[in-house]
């Protein structure tokens, strides 16, 4: 695809500058262009300006931002080229969804929940005057649903968004974007919320559509592995500037800018992984036996059994809905409606935290998925870290303060940061604070529930490193819950694969990754994008 030299680019953005209304620059002269049929990936971490640069292609600026110079030129396949920024809002609106279209990040939020999906797609066509008659339009709706790999029949079109899975919703979103046969499509992290298997399907769909119909695609993402899977060219953004661009091959294999190198190195890789501490194999610290949970009729976990040895890290792998969070909450005592038993060092733990002893509560700690919601916004970091000590120990105030200080040092948070409120900290800093809160009671078992999924790649890598170091230093057993199999060799000794509430495979990481027994594990490995 890249070999084709096309005379006109479908989209040309030149020296684009965007400022906040207060005047501080968000984009400092960004230029990129995309040829028909080409996928350009715009990569960067949160705050790098990638979404602003992407939305500018549609002539859209988020509230509080305004263009301060530069041009955005669209060259539709069959029509005159237009400078998007110079147009009146009404003309721009006519372009959007027709010549320039957009696939948002979360389809569940962007689809109208009260409208059947067939109608929603037809609405786009109608709004842009596509086709001469209703018949022609409904034919196009069926056609485009087929193109994105969804059933096109009447029954399917009559479904509401909530009756579709996340992957199907996202493909409906893509269908809407492609309905009017646009020249340029901007995709804003469209696979972020999806499982790897679904992600692979969606990526394939996007790839096919762009090639087949000669659509120029701008793919905004922070996931370099996805970039490797879908894009022809990459532009790496940082601080409102493009620091490096080129073909995927060039940028990902031979990055020239130091920031790109950092990013590339931070991506967890199935093959990679450093030295891991060797666990103490004889003592089983945590033993889960025949754990079952049902929510009403729906069985979430059925007869799950696990052991975690002292100092060992178990990777609990599962896609959304597999029951992995429910399992870890049962162990932590946050979900007491289950059968089966959880034992710690040979003693059975009560199902609910209220009936566990302070010793037991100190011994099992939990790090939540999102550091944005796990810290009380009205408490300083130091206060939040102190709470478990207040509740679970007899230490006096000075002793507690000292322990908090020591723990914060361990996770490398400065005392000055610890006096701030969570919203004055970055995501990585918050997650380190949450880890400190879990470690302050020196637990025997640390449950980490998707602790990296809300963070940027490079931050993700530092958190993983930190957890590994702490584990080696403290000898804490760890259950690392994740959907990302690529992390396995970086953190874990053993792996347990959870699917539909059952453990389908378990074993040492190397064995499972190199010789997966279960079909599902094999599928997961095959679908995980690699750099």
């Amino acid at each position, binding site marked *: 695809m890249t070999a084709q030299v096309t005379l006109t680019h479908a989209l040309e953005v030149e020296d684009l500058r965007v400022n906040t209304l207060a005047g501080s620059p968000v984009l400092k002269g960004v230029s990129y262009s995309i040829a028909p049929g080409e996928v350009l990936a715009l990569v960067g971490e949160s705050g790098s300006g990638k979404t602003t640069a992407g939305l500018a292609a549609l002539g859209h600026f988020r509230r509080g931002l305004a263009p301060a110079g530069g041009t955005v030129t669209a060259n539709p396949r069959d029509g005159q080229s237009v400078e998007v920024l110079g147009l009146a809002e009404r003309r721009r609106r006519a372009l959007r969804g027709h010549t320039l279209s957009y696939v948002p990040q979360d389809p569940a939020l962007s689809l109208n929940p009260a409208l059947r999906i067939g109608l929603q797609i037809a609405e786009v066509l109608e709004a842009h005057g596509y086709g001469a008659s209703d018949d022609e339009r409904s034919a196009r709706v069926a056609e485009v649903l087929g193109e994105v790999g969804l059933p096109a029949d009447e029954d399917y079109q009559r479904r509401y968004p909530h009756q579709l899975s996340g992957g199907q919703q996202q493909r409906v979103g893509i269908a809407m974007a492609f309905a009017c046969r646009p020249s340029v499509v901007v995709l804003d992290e469209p696979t972020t919320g999806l499982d790897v298997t679904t992600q692979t399907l969606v990526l394939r769909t996007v790839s096919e559509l762009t090639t087949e119909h000669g659509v120029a695609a701008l793919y905004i993402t922070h996931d370099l592995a996805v970039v490797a899977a879908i894009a022809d060219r990459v532009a790496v953004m940082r601080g409102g500037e493009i620091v490096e661009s080129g073909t995927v091959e060039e940028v990902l294999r031979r990055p020239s800018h130091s920031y790109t190198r950092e990013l590339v190195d931070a991506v967890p890789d199935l093959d990679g992984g450093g030295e891991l501490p060797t666990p103490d194999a004889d003592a089983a610290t945590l033993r889960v036996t025949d754990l079952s949970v049902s929510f009403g009729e729906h069985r979430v976990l059925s007869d799950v059994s696990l052991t975690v040895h002292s100092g060992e890290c178990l990777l609990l792998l599962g896609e959304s809905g597999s029951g992995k969070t429910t399992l870890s909450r049962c162990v932590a005592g946050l979900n007491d409606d289950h059968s089966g038993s959880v034992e710690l060092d040979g003693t059975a733990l009560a199902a609910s935290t209220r009936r566990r002893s302070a010793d037991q509560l100190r011994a099992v700690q*939990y790090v*939540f998925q999102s550091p944005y919601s796990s810290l009380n916004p009205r408490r300083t970091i130091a206060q939040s870290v102190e709470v478990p000590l207040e509740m679970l120990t007899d230490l006096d105030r000075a002793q507690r303060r000292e322990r908090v200080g020591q723990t914060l040092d361990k996770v490398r948070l400065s005392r000055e940061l610890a006096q701030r409120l969570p919203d004055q900290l970055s995501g990585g800093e918050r997650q380190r604070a949450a880890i400190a809160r879990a470690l302050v009671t020196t637990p025997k078992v640390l449950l980490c529930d998707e602790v990296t999924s809300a963070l940027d790649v490079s931050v993700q890598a530092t958190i993983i490193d930190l957890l590994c170091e702490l584990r080696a230093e403290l000898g804490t057993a760890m259950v690392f819950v994740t959907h990302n199999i690529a992390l396995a060799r970086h953190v874990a000794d053993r792996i347990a694969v959870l699917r539909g509430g059952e453990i389908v495979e378990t074993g040492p990481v190397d064995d499972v990754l190199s010789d997966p027994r279960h079909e599902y594990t094999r599928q997961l490995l095959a679908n995980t994008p690699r750099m």
Partner: protein
Amino acid sequence: MSTPTVPSTRSRKSTVFRRALALPQAKIGLTLTAVVVLLAVLGPWLGPWLTGYDTTGFAGKPFHSDGVAGTDGLGRDVFTRFLAGGATLLLYAVLATAIGIVLGTALGMLAGYTGGRLDSIIMRGNDVLLSFPQLVFALLAIAMLGPQGWLLVLVIGITHAPRVARVARQATVAVKDSDYIKAAQLYAMPRRRILLREVLPNITGPLMVELGLRLTYSIGYVASLSFLGLGIQPPAADWGLMINENRIALVLEPWGVLLPVLAIAVLTVGTNLVTDSLASAAAGREKEAAA
């Protein structure tokens, strides 16, 4: 290092306040409220000192005299009575609001956090109370037990509670599934402490708005009940009462009605504006948190 608890919480709250204060309607509202409150608080002393008359005594002047606002039908100096007439009203309104907010917040948080049957019992009981118009309920209670200050405060406070409870419950439900609440459960934190330390600080935004709204209503109700003769009793000077006493002479001697009406209007408009700006500042913060 100093104790971090107090200053940090305060600084956080002040950001909502500060953002609210930056709005023009807040400045106007605050000025209006401050003027009337000052008038009401200082008035009882200021009046006799300025005019030389006391609030109940016969001013010794004919009706329609040369005083600032003349005298009323009983020959009492209207301006003195006006200055003295806001203190009790304001006190009652503030107390009633406080009762309503405390009671309503406690019930609403308990219902929202606990859920299940307790939630149903509290909230259905709430619905029953809500079905009575507030003023009718107050009239009923006072007609039965007689017009007494404490009853007035209590009845208005109690009738505020279910309305506050609804808001508190909704706000509690919105935060109770947050991971930081789960984290507190992880340390087996007692429910009372979770409610006071984890939930309450995070729902102050909507509660503050409710506080302003209830204060506005309280002022209106206390004044209305006094006007109807079921609140503050003669011969005390009170704005609501003054309106009733002087309305017969509205055409001849308008000040006796106009001054208290103006004061109540300015006060309620003022508190309302402040409430509005608090509401938009709090909503802005929530929008930020969601983004």
